[in-house]
C-alpha cells in the first residue's frame, strides 16, 4: 500500500474533521481565555473573616480615630472612626494610605549596622541584642569619658510616653540635648507663654466661631488636625460663616474661603497689627481681658497707620478697614496663623499679633473663641535620679543654644542644630539619636544639614522607613509603625479640648522591628546604674498602663480620652511680643527679584512621613511630571522672564539652584513663586524618590530675633530660562 500524497491529505482532512468534532480545540480556546482571566501573576486576595479594629492614627499630629478593616490577619483598609471626637468618621488622604506604609517596600525590616560608606546603602543585618549592645556600649563609653552631653536626640514630639521615655533617657544619661522638630507649635507655645504668662498651647473653638480670619493658615491644606478642619470648613459653609484667607497665593484654603485677600508674603503680622490699629482707633475693641493696653495702644497707632500697612502688605486700605469691621462686628471672631500646615515655627511677632486680635475681640476662653489650653499632665513620673556623670552633662549648654541667653524662652531650636554641629556649637556632637524625624529632608538648607550630619561620628535612627536620615545613619533600630504598636497619642493641633488617643496594634509586627519605648527601656536597663533605675518598668506596655492610670480603662474601651472642660492657663492677655522687627526674606533684591514661598498641599505629606504611592498618584501633573518639579508663577512673572507653561527653568536662591518646570497660575501674586513642600526625596522607594525638588534645598532658616526659632517664610529667588 503506497501512502501517496493524496492519502496523506485525506488523513489530515479526516484528522481535522475529527478534531473539530472533539472537545480539544474548543475546550482549549475556552480554557485559554479563562487562563487570561486569572493570570497566575495577577494576585487573588484571599477571603476570610472581616473584623474591624479601632486605633489612633499618629501619622500627623491630628490624632484621628481610625477603624481598620481586617480580613483574617491582613489589614485591608483604614477608615475613619465614626463618633470619634476629632474626626467622626472622616479621614484624610494620608491616613487612608497608611497600609502602604505598613506593608510597603520602604520599611526597615530589621536592625542593621552600616558596613559601607555613609549613604552608600550597605548594611549588615544584626540581631536586636547585638544592636542594643552596640548602642549601649557606645553610649556608656562616651558617658564614662564625661562627655554625656555630646549625645543628642531629635524627635518629632515631646508629648506622650514614648518621647517622654526618650527625654527621660537623655536626662538620666546626662545630656541636655533632647530636641523636638520644628513646627508652628514652637511659636504657639512661646506666644501663649508671652501673652498668658504660663505654659500651654492655644486651642480654637472653630466650630462655634462666626468669623474666621486666617493669616495664611492652611485651613484645608493640613493645618491643625486636618480632618477636624475639613469638618469645620463644611460646618462654616452650612452656617454661612465668613472665612477670610490672607495669603499671597490662591491655596485650596483661599479657594474655599468666602474671601481671599492676597498679601505680600511675610507681611501678615503687619496686616494683623494694622487691623488691630483700625479696631483700636475706631473703638471696636473689648479690653476687658487685656492688660498693658495703654502703652501698647499708642505704639500701635503710631506704627501701623492704615495707609502705611496698606503699602507694606499690598492690601488696599479699604480692605483692611473692611476686615477690621467684619472682625469687630462678629460675635465670635477668630484669627488664626501658622502658614500652610504650620510646619515652620514662625515668628513670635506674627503669632502674638494674631492672638492679640482674638484678645481685642474679647474672644478668649469662651465658646467660639481662642483658649489657652494647659499642657497635658498625665505623665507623672518621679524625677529621674541623676548620678554625677549625668548631672555634669546636664549642666552643659545645649548644642542648639535653646533655653539660655538670647534664646532663653525657647525650648528647642532644631534649626540651629546644623550650625551647632558645624562648629558654632559649644562642643562637637558624638552621637545623634533620631526618632520619628527626618531632619535631612525636612530642615531648611538641607545641604548644610547633611554636612552637619556627616560630621557626627555616630548616628542612630529609630525610623521605620528608609528615609534620608536613615540613609545617613550608622545604626538602624527600626520602630514598629503605628499600626503595630501601643502608644498614647495626646492631641494638640489647635483643639480647644484635651484629647488623648490610643494606638493599638492592629496587626502583629510584620518585620523584625521593635517598639521605640521597648528599645529605650532595654537600652537603659542594659546601661545599669541610675539610668536603669530611672526605668522601673519591665516593658513599655506596663509603663503605658501605669502612666495612664485610670485613663487606661477608658482608652482600652473607647480608644480615646476627652476632657472638654478646659481650665485655661490664664484669663488675661498681656499685650507683648509684637515689637520685634519684621522677618525679612534672605537675599539681595537686585540679584533675586522674586520671592519664593513654599506651599503646603494636603496631598503631599510635608512632615516626617513621605508620600505613600497612593498620595503621590493624586499629585497633579502641574506639580510633578516624571521627575520634574514645578514652580508656580503668575503668567505676568513668567512672561517677564520669557517663560511659558511647562518650560524648563533655573530657579536660584542664595541657598541653591535647581532646575524646575514652570506652571502658570493666575492665583498667585505677581513677583511671587511658589513651590510645593515635601517633594524631592532622595531616599524611600521609586514611588517617591527623585520626584520634584525639595524646597528646603533652596531655603535657609531665618532666625526670629526674639526666640531663635526659624521664622523663614520664603527666600528671594530668580527664575531664568534653562
Amino acid at each position: 500500500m503506497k501512502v501517496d500524497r493524496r492519502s496523506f491529505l485525506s488523513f489530515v482532512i479526516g484528522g481535522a474533521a475529527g478534531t473539530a468534532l472533539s472537545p480539544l480545540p474548543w475546550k482549549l480556546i475556552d480554557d485559554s481565555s479563562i487562563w487570561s482571566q486569572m493570570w497566575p501573576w495577577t494576585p487573588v486576595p484571599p477571603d476570610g473573616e472581616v473584623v474591624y479594629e479601632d486605633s489612633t492614627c499618629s501619622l500627623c499630629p491630628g490624632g484621628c480615630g481610625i477603624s481598620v478593616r481586617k480580613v483574617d490577619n491582613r489589614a485591608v483598609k483604614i477608615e475613619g472612626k465614626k463618633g470619634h471626637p476629632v474626626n467622626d468618621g472622616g479621614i484624610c488622604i494620608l491616613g487612608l494610605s497608611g497600609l502602604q506604609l505598613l506593608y510597603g517596600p520602604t520599611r526597615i525590616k530589621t536592625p542593621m549596622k552600616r558596613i559601607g560608606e555613609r549613604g552608600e546603602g550597605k548594611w549588615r543585618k544584626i540581631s536586636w541584642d547585638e544592636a542594643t549592645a552596640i548602642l549601649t556600649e557606645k553610649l556608656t563609653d562616651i558617658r564614662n569619658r564625661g562627655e554625656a552631653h555630646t549625645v543628642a536626640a531629635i524627635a518629632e514630639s515631646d508629648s506622650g510616653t514614648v518621647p517622654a521615655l526618650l527625654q527621660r533617657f537623655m536626662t538620666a544619661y546626662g545630656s541636655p540635648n533632647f530636641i523636638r522638630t520644628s513646627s508652628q507649635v514652637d511659636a504657639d507655645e512661646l506666644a501663649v507663654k508671652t501673652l498668658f504668662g504660663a505654659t500651654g498651647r492655644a486651642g480654637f473653638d472653630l466650630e462655634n466661631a462666626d468669623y474666621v480670619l486666617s493669616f495664611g493658615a492652611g485651613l484645608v491644606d493640613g493645618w491643625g488636625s486636618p480632618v477636624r478642619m475639613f469638618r469645620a470648613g463644611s460646618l462654616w459653609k452650612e452656617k454661612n460663616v465668613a472665612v477670610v484667607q490672607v495669603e499671597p497665593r490662591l491655596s485650596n484654603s483661599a479657594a474655599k474661603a468666602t474671601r481671599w485677600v492676597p498679601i505680600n508674603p511675610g507681611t501678615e503680622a503687619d496686616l494683623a497689627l494694622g487691623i488691630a490699629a483700625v479696631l483700636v482707633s475706631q473703638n471696636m475693641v473689648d479690653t476687658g481681658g487685656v492688660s498693658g493696653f495703654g502703652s501698647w495702644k499708642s505704639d500701635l497707632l503710631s506704627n501701623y497707620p492704615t495707609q502705611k500697612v496698606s503699602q507694606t502688605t499690598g492690601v488696599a486700605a479699604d480692605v483692611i478697614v473692611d476686615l477690621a469691621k467684619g472682625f469687630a462686628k462678629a460675635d465670635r471672631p477668630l484669627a488664626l496663623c501658622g502658614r500652610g500646615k504650620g510646619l515652620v515655627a514662625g515668628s513670635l511677632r506674627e503669632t502674638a499679633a494674631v492672638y492679640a486680635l482674638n484678645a481685642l475681640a474679647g474672644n478668649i476662653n469662651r465658646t467660639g473663641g481662642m483658649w489657652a489650653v494647659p499642657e497635658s499632665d498625665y505623665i507623672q513620673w518621679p524625677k529621674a535620679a541623676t548620678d554625677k556623670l549625668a548631672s555634669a552633662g546636664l549642666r552643659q549648654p545645649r548644642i542648639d543654644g535653646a533655653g539660655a541667653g538670647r534664646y532663653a524662652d525657647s525650648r528647642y531650636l532644631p534649626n540651629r542644630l546644623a550650625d551647632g554641629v558645624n562648629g558654632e556649637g559649644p562642643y562637637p556632637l558624638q552621637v545623634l539619636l533620631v526618632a520619628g524625624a527626618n531632619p535631612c529632608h525636612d530642615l531648611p538648607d538641607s545641604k548644610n544639614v547633611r554636612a552637619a550630619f556627616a560630621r557626627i561620628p555616630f548616628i542612630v535612627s529609630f525610623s521605620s522607613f528608609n528615609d534620608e536620615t536613615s540613609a545617613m545613619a550608622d545604626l538602624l533600630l527600626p520602630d514598629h509603625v503605628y499600626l503595630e504598636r501601643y502608644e498614647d497619642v495626646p492631641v494638640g493641633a489647635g483643639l480647644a479640648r484635651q484629647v488623648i488617643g490610643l494606638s493599638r496594634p492592629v496587626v502583629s509586627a510584620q518585620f523584625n522591628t521593635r517598639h521605640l519605648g521597648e528599645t529605650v527601656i532595654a537600652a537603659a536597663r542594659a546601661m545599669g546604674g541610675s539610668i536603669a533605675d530611672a526605668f522601673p518598668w519591665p516593658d513599655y506596655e506596663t509603663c503605658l498602663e501605669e502612666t495612664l492610670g485610670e485613663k487606661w480603662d477608658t482608652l482600652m474601651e473607647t480608644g480615646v480620652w476627652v476632657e472638654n472642660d478646659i481650665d485655661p492657663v490664664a484669663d488675661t492677655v498681656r499685650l507683648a511680643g509684637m515689637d520685634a522687627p519684621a522677618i525679612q526674606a534672605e537675599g539681595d533684591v537686585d540679584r533675586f527679584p522674586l520671592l519664593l514661598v513654599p506651599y503646603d498641599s494636603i496631598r503631599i505629606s510635608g512632615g516626617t512621613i513621605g508620600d505613600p504611592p497612593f498620595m503621590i498618584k493624586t499629585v497633579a501633573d502641574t506639580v510633578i511630571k516624571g521627575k520634574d518639579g514645578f514652580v508656580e508663577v503668575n503668567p505676568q512673572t513668567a512672561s517677564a522672564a520669557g517663560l511659558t507653561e511647562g518650560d524648563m527653568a533655573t530657579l536660584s536662591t542664595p541657598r541653591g539652584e535647581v532646575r524646575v518646570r514652570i506652571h502658570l497660575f493666575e492665583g498667585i501674586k505677581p513677583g511671587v513663586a511658589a513651590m510645593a513642600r515635601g517633594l524631592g526625596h532622595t531616599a524611600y522607594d521609586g514611588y517617591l524618590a527623585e520626584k520634584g525638588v525639595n524646597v528646603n534645598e533652596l531655603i535657609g532658616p531665618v532666625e526670629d530675633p526674639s526666640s531663635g526659632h526659624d521664622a523663614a517664610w520664603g527666600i528671594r529667588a530668580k527664575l531664568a530660562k534653562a
Partner: protein
Amino acid sequence: MDTALIPKGVRRCPMWQFLLGLGIVGAVLAWGVYAMLLCWFKGLNQTNMNNYYGFALWIWADLAVIALGGGAFFSGLLKYIIGKDELKHIINYAVLIGFICYSSALLILAIDIGQPLRGWFIFWHANIHSMLTEVAFCLSCYFSVLTIEYIPLILENRQLNKVPFFHHLSHNMHEVMAVFAATGAFLSFFHQGSLGGVAGVLFGRPFAFREGLLIWPWTFFLFTWSAAAYGPCFTLLLTWITEKVTRKKLVKDNVVELLAKISGWMILTYTVAKICDTTRWANITVPGMGQTLADFYTGNAFYGYWILFVEIVLCGVVPAIILISAPLRKNPAWRITAFFLGVIGVSLNRWVMILQVMAVPVMPFDSWALYYPSWQEVATTILPVAYGVILIMISYRYLPIFPQEAELNPIEEAATAAVEIQTDTTPDLEPAQA
C-alpha cells in the same frame, strides 16, 4: 526556475529580482511582526495610546483599509449584480486588494484589543446593540466571502488547476459567484455602515454624534457610500502603481475609465450628502448640545478648519469633478491625481471620525488631548502594508490576476505560445463564465 508556476503567456521578472524584492519587503514585515509580538506579549503599554485615546492610529488604519478595500465589494456589486461585465478585467485585482485590506483589518483588531485570547467573546457574547459587534460579524463574514472570491483565483494557478478537484472547485465557485457577491455586498453595506455607526452613535461625543434613520446614524450611510465611492479609486490607484512597477499595461483604459466614471459620480453624490450632513450637524445637532464648530476646530495645535476644506472640497468636490468630466478623466495625470485625492480624502475622513473624536474635549473644563503614535504602533500599521505588497507580488507572479495582461503584452519571441493562449489559456484566465 519557477516557470512551471507562472501563468502561461506572460513574462515575469527573474527569480533573483523577485526574491530580492520579497526580501526587502519581508524585512519590513518582520519589523512589523516584531512590534506585533511586543504588543501581544508585553501588552498595549507598548503603544502611546492612553485613556483619552482609547482608539488611535490602528483603528484609523483599520477603518481606512476597510474603506479602501471597499473597491472589492463595489466592483463585485457592479459586475455581478448590476452587470457591468467589462469590470471582469479588474475584478480579480479588486478582490485581491479587498482580501488584503480585510485580512489586515482583522489582524489589526487582533492586536488592538487588550485581551486577544478573549477576542472571540465579541461573537460568543455578542451585544447586538453595539456597532462594534455588527462590525465584527459583518467584517469576518465578508472576509470569508472575500476568501471565497480569492480561492478560485489561487486555484487557477497553472499547476493547481491541473488537479481535477481544484479545477472543478474553482469552476463551480465561479458559477455561484454572483450569490457570494450579493451576500458580500449585503455584508459590506452593513459593516462599512456600522463602522460609521461606531462614531455616529456616540451620543456622549457631540463631535461624532449624528442623528439618523432608525438605529443607524447618518454616518452609517455616509461610510458605506464613501467606501463604495472611494474604494474603486484605491483599486485603480494600485493598478496604476502596479503598472508602473511592472512597466506593463495591465488593464485596458476603457475598463479603468468606466470604473473611474462610476467612482466619480459616487464621490459627487457622497460629497453632496456629506455637505448636507455637515451643515445639519453644524447648525442643528451641535448647537443643540451647546457647542459650536469653533469648539472642534480651534484651541489646539493640529485640528483646524483646514480639515473640513481638505476633506470636503479638495478630496471630495475636486476628484468628483475630475472623474466626471470625460476629458479630465481620460487624461492619465488628472485621473491619477483624482484617485490620489480620493484615497487621501477617505483616509482623512476616517482619521477625523476616530482620532479627532478622541481629541476634542467634551466637558468644558477638559482639554484637548493630542497624541503621537509609538514606533510599535507605526510598525504594526506598516505591517499590513508590507504583507499586502508581498501578497500582491506573489499573486501577481503566479496567478492570472490581470486577464488582459497577456493580450496587452504579447511575448514576441514565442509566437507559438501566443497561439496556445488564444486557444487554451485565455478562457481559463477569465474569472467567470456565468
